[in-house]
């Protein structure tokens, strides 16, 4: 009797094709659905100006403008849904929205379930000084006074610097604004504050300069569900386009000052 050998290769290939088809189907479902409906559903927490804040006629801010610009580029309309910060990722996971645009920092521990676009803004800490006596990096702060916001991340970072930089004096203030005002007055030689606060204040005070490098990294990005490669690709393509034609910078300048 002739025994037929089972060849596993065709079975494995068939299984791989099935799996590939299924996962491709899931990816296409998201982008196909969005294209079919013509609506990009965006989730955000509208309590974080200048990125998103409730306004008279809805919601306004950098993320709002960004989402609308991307939607326009893709030929879509935007629908915003508001959530508390805690509920944002679950809202995406339960298909309440297609994408999150809410000043969210790229977070490695979420890579399993979510995917991030390229970053559109970095909100880390920056070193600010006066144009007449600029400090470009921490090494130049020997014997200097450094203004920080009391208890904020800059204060935490400065406490580490204090142990490393000779005769560095930390001056805490009640707010970022007060710390930067002290710098402007000459009561401090530099200030270590968050990038957003620094940009907003510098727009009103041209005597200040922000150091070229961020002291800490906090990259903001849009968020989609993991596996939605096509949606991620089109969002990234839009972001690249907006970066190349300066539209992204125009949005940032509008809210954060030039």
């Amino acid at each position: 009797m002739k025994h037929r050998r089972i060849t596993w290769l065709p079975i494995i290939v068939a299984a791989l094709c099935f799996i590939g088809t299924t996962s491709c189907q899931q990816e296409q479902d998201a982008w196909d659905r969005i294209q079919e409906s013509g609506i990009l559903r965006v989730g955000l927490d509208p309590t974080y100006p200048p990125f998103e804040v409730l306004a008279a006629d809805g919601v306004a801010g950098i993320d709002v403008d960004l989402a609308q610009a991307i939607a326009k580029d893709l030929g879509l309309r935007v629908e915003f849904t508001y959530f508390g910060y805690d509920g944002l990722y679950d809202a995406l996971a339960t298909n309440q929205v297609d994408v999150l645009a809410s000043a969210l920092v790229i977070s490695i521990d979420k890579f399993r379930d979510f995917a991030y676009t390229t970053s559109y803004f970095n909100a880390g800490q920056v070193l600010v000084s006066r144009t007449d006596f600029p400090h470009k990096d921490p090494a130049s702060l020997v014997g200097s006074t450094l203004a920080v916001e009391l208890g904020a991340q800059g204060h935490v970072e400065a406490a580490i610097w204090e142990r490393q930089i000779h005769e560095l004096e930390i001056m805490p203030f009640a707010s970022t604004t007060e710390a930067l005002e002290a710098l402007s007055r000459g009561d401090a030689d530099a200030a270590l504050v968050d990038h957003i606060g620094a940009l907003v204040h510098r727009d009103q005070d041209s005597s200040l300069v922000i150091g070229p490098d961020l002291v800490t990294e906090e990259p903001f990005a849009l968020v989609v569900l993991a596996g939605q490669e096509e949606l991620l690709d089109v969002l990234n393509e839009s972001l690249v386009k907006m970066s190349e034609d300066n539209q992204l910078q125009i949005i940032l300048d509008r809210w954060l000052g030039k």
Partner: protein
Amino acid sequence: MVRALCQRNGDSPDVDRLIIFNWYSYGDNSLRAIRKSVVKYQKYFPHLGKNIRFDPALRLLVLSLFLALIQPAPILIVAGQHEAVRSSHPIVAVHTRLTDEVEPWKIQRSLQMVREMGASSIVEFFPWAYYHGQDGGIAWEHPDLVIEHASAQGLKVVARLGLTPAWARPTGTPLTHLDEGAYDDFASFAAQFAARYEGKVDSLIIWNEPNLSYEWGYRQTPVSDYVNLLMKAYPAIKEANPEMRVLAGALAPTLEPEGSPWGLNDLIYLNRMYEEGAADYFDGLSVHAYGLTFPPDTPADPGLLNYRRVELVREIMIKNNDQETPILITETGWNDHPRWTLAVKPGQRIQYTIDALELAEKEWPYVEMVAIWAFRLPAPSKSYMDSYTLVTPEFVKKPIYDTLQEYAGN
């Protein structure tokens, strides 16, 4: 144990090159041990030639293995002798966040700093989903660690239980999804938790903010769903440990109206809990009382979400003849992020927090505990949530910690 790797020398087909290394030989004796092994085992492979080579690659491999095996002994963190909290305001408590803190020394350090600050109690979150396997086994290591260290620091523990394991909810649903099909499993876990930590955990909070659809996996659920959960969990817990207190509620302050897909006004929700028969199924009411942008003494108003909303909650309890049941404020606080619309300045945050504690002590005899959210996060959230903490992930004390420590008399 000896592993043998044989290669045939193409130049001499009758001679096999036998390379043997002994995994358990260390130090300078490694090569000698290897040669001894070769000689010893050669008798089992007589057909093999005696052309044994120890080429540089092998030596490097042996050295690498040796270096990998030489490791310092892990630092042993012991709970140490039992301490006692010294505080002139024992109402002060904190919500720690050790759920995702895996390093024992950080758990110990956090709880040590809690005691040193003068907080008498902690609220900590123990996710059911993290521990309970589908086979019924429960991984107790992490809760054991946290509770042991808390006990060693003399801290009273209030444990919140929540989040559903994947095997107890439909595929594709979030961790917060809980339906009646899993109530028995949850009750079983809660009972085992209560039994295991008898004498070390004071109270169990059943679920979290059930008046929000988010806490049910973004499902609109009737109040009866939560009451039914209490009716399952309460007797199971009491049977396992009659002394364990069961706390209901932890309702989220919200003004969401009837029919909202996002949740239901906490005052309406609590009243309906009583209507559904919840009163006999909890020993204390957990309350969240965030101040947002209002000073703590801002008068209570049904249309306002502020600290004194606790008084409106109390009125509902009294209206339902539940004045004997205490309130535990398991989350409260102010946020001092520079741009969050619901934050205050850092100096205001410190003052409001102290004032809130004093107010609770003087005016709310029914409030046993005021737990400030949150003591420390294991890692920065990179959002305004970081501005709720008292201590940074690097254990740097924020000024509010120092003020609270001074307030508690430490």
